[in-house]
């Protein structure tokens, strides 16, 4: 069982690290808006951070989740727009991976941060990922409509997940959420190890 979990985490980390390599925009044939949604859906790193932030905000209650519902897409949109302006900027793999691991750890620990701190954390993480998103999507041919599509998908996933977590009863359902957080943290740490590999060699 442990071996299976370990293998899954390594595989997940490898896929997440590999995702920037194929940052070209997914073509659904439905237009740029839907291309943006599809880009988010197939970008595992983006999906994981949104899930992690939604779980984190949801665990902190209705008010924090409500703030995160607006803060995350707004920060992602602003970050994405800035990233689109400087598409050649570095994609900052260490910063994004660190923020993923940190968010996972906060979920796993069920960290009792204030609503304002949760919102601030969500804004920083969202803007960071949004910037990378904008910087990688633009050279792939994405415009503002694709970014808007991705942000709408983020709003949808974050809102629904965070809302459902807020109503989870105390007991094993909340523990399951924390376990999911620990998996995300472990994935982030494995990614960090993967990123450090060339410098160690």
């Amino acid at each position, binding site marked *: 069982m442990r071996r299976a979990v370990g293998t899954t985490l390594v595989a997940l980390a490898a896929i997440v690290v590999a995702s920037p390599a194929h940052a070209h925009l997914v073509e659904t*044939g439905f237009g740029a808006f839907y291309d943006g949604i599809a880009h988010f859906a197939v970008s595992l790193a983006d999906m994981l951070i949104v899930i992690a932030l939604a779980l984190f905000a949801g665990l902190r209650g*209705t008010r924090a989740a*409500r703030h995160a*519902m607006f803060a995350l897409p707004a920060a992602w949109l602003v970050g994405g727009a800035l990233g689109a302006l400087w598409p050649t900027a570095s994609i900052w793999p260490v910063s994004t991976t660190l923020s993923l691991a940190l968010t996972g750890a906060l979920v796993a620990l069920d960290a009792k941060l204030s609503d304002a701190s949760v919102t601030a954390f969500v804004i920083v993480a969202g803007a960071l990922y949004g910037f990378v998103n904008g910087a990688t999507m633009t050279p792939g041919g994405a415009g503002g409509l694709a970014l808007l599509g991705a942000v709408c998908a983020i709003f949808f996933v974050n*809102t629904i997940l965070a*809302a459902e977590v*807020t*109503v989870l009863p105390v007991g094993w359902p909340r523990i399951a959420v924390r376990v999911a957080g620990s998996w995300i943290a472990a994935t982030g740490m494995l990614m960090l190890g993967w990123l450090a590999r060339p410098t160690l060699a």
Partner: protein
Amino acid sequence: MSAGLRSWLLVVLALLSSGAAAHEMSMAEMEVRQISPREFLWQWTVSGNRPANEVLTPVWPDGCQDEDNIVRCGDAGLQGVLTIKGIGKVYSAAMIRVYWRDAPMSVYTIAAGQPRARLSGPSDGASPGPGAYLYLGIEHIMLGVDHLLFVLGLLLIVGDRWMLLKTITAFTVAHSITLAVATFGIAHVPAAPLNASIALSILFLGPEIVRRWRGETSFTIRHPWVVAFAFGLLHGFGFASGLAQLGLPDSQIPLALLLFNIGVEIGQLAFVFGILLLERSFRLLECHWPRLVERLPGYLVGTLGAFWTIQRVVILLRSVA
């Protein structure tokens, strides 16, 4: 209506006005005629607003060379994988008809979801593949902003879940009937009056939504499924326009009809469940929206319905004049 709200609606109208053309499928058509055992003359026969030859480039099977719209192939003839560069941008799909000298015509469909066709010579069964029909159905509803807006209007009127189930089912049954009727060629409605009527169906829901806000009642509010069924018949003819452009051989119509309809349902149900999930989430998160935001979807249905009605009636009158 406040100045702020009017400005908002103007911005929304400007952003969404392109949706008036949302019905028109961006399907290109290519004709390939065999002129000798190894030579084929090809040309784009149907294009949309932008000529297909400007944005689409066919990549012929290995062993075939294109020169001045004449494809010359080796001993194997026109066999192998055909792809079209540029599919999924201006044109969402392309239909290729191959006219053989000594065999029945073959038809292939290339779409973003199925970007290649395997040509296997004159004996080919000419099936575009079930995936293409399913994909076209999903695409038609996802890009058909007017259909989705009508469904949104129904969701805003319907009171409880049982009524919602009845209403959505009635809409589905109705548009399936007319989709089949139109696809089998039993009845046909010209595009201009049809599009104007579909816009009118959306406009019709606007005042009903306002009545519901005011706590008033009407036949539509009491029996939304009847209205959904009646207008669903119209929308079915609209869906049929997407399938009709494929120019299907008779033998393929039942399968294509079924899969296209399933595609439409997948898209429609995804939209309905998405709206319901968001509504539940807003309730769980105790969101108290300002009245303007709360009523924005209703205003969107009414104003866009009015805008499209005026626009499409003008197009209808121009076509008559």
